[in-house]
């Protein structure tokens, strides 16, 4: 491992060898956060199982991230840390916890941990909604705030996001 003064060893490890990336087919919950304009997009997939006592728990978690090193590292530790946790336990994960698990992030990159936490909230929200389960007030509040921000950003960069869709479509046609 090469030294990096900017990032902790933990961050670098999680970037170099992320174990939890990829897509889960037929996921039970998906959280899609971030915006291509800001250069960070994070998708989190959840597979939910039932424990012997009947409690829901996160059987598997995988992420797909377009973003910087800190975004990839944040996604990876998030996916790792929620595995085998009950939904209630997983919901206790917040950005501070992600930063702690990474042994710190530079101030400029804290927003990456915020994004990872948001991806988790959105994925769990998606799972609870789809399965007609009760959504805790706290989570609903977070979901509404994330939705609002998403809409604002999309409005602000309307031209750019449309250009993006076209550009990616063109790429697909090429290959």
């Amino acid at each position, binding site marked *: 491992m*090469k030294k990096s003064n900017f990032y902790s060893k933990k961050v670098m490890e999680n970037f170099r060898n992320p174990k939890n990336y990829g897509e889960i087919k037929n996921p039970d919950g998906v959280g899609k956060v971030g915006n291509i304009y800001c*250069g960070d*997009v994070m998708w989190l997939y959840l597979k939910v199982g039932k424990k012997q006592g009947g409690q829901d728990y996160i059987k598997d978690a995988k992420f797909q991230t*377009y973003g*910087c090193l800190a975004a990839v590292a944040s996604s990876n530790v998030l996916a790792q840390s929620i595995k085998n946790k009950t939904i209630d336990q997983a919901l206790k994960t917040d950005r501070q916890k992600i930063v702690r698990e990474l042994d710190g992030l530079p101030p400029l990159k804290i927003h990456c941990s915020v994004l990872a936490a948001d991806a988790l909230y959105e994925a769990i929200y998606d799972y609870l909604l789809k399965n007609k389960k009760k959504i805790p007030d706290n989570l609903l509040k977070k979901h509404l705030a994330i939705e609002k921000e998403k809409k604002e950003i999309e409005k602000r960069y309307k031209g*750019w996001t449309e250009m993006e869709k076209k550009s990616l479509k063109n790429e697909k046609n090429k*290959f």
Partner: protein
Amino acid sequence: MKAYFDYAATTPIDPRVLRAMTPFLKKEFGNASSIHQLGQNARIAIDQAREKIAQFLNCQIQEIIFTGSATEANNLAIFGSTKRIIKDQPINPHIITTEIEHHSVLHPIEKLRTDGVKATFISPQKNGIVDPKDFKKALTKNTVLVSVIYANNEIGAIQPLKEIAGIINGFKQSQKSKFPVFHTDAVQAINYLDCDVKKLGVDLLTLSGHKICGPKGIGALFVKKDAPIEALIFGGGHEFGLRSGTENVPGIVGLGEAIEMIKGHKKDLNKIIDFRDRIIESLLKVRGAEISGGIENRLPNNINISFAGVEGESLLMALDQEGIFVSTGSACSSKDLKPSHVLQALGLSPNRAHGSLRITLGRYTTKKEVDYLLKKLPVIVEKIRAISPFKI
């Protein structure tokens, strides 16, 4: 292995430059303003360096003003000429520049805007080059300054300075006016392009030491005789009264030496062009690769490439882990989390702007380094793409 591909950020100092500088960091430490022998040795060294630069730019020695950096030279050009012109003639000043200037030009102009100065920002075409006709349209009798980067630092696009100068001179003659003053930031161009100020038709030209295998902390501004400009820094009246402060003798000597060496390195040019073409050809075979900016009229040492669905800073950091040093216009690497203004001005999609990788070559680039880059980069691109939600 280490492979340096960030020559547009800075360059290593040439051993000959260092040798020329060393005496002035040691025994010859005199202040050029002192009239004793030690001082006069420093004075002679400064004069010789000034002579070398004047020769390179095809101008007079009194037209070279040494500064602490190219940023300072750009600030002197912009604030100094604007202030001077409006002092002589009370008008509501207007400045024309481009959307693809370096921050050391854009931010001084932004500062002037907060003080009430009007500014027009010319957009480049898709190839990164501005259309001189746009300048004709933008010129007004209140235009005090036109500032255009000679070759862009991110995409290497070479701007048509001669044509713009022709338009400005025609305008000046028709208006019988001493302004607008025409300034160019030639920092990236010095190594590769003809910088004869008479041929270019510029009044002010900025250059830097550390982009041309010279030292950091030294820049210079060419100021055409009689061009309206005034000092921003006052003191002992150094540099013909335009920039006070004890001369950075080793820096000046190093800059002079570095400039003089450029003509001896023309053979490197072919090597650099060969490397560049090989890198472009090879990397364009990677899925989703696209070059930003045009290929024509581009600095021979600049490659700016993106790979669909792959974010630039991740790519940069993964390359860094392999000892390969490049640069990116991705937002993640900027303080304001916005992607490069230059790439946005080209009309690139967010995915392209955030995914940009700048690879810049130089005098010391070796075949071994290029081979290493071409071996590692495609593998790393696919590794990062595997993590990305955007599949192509």
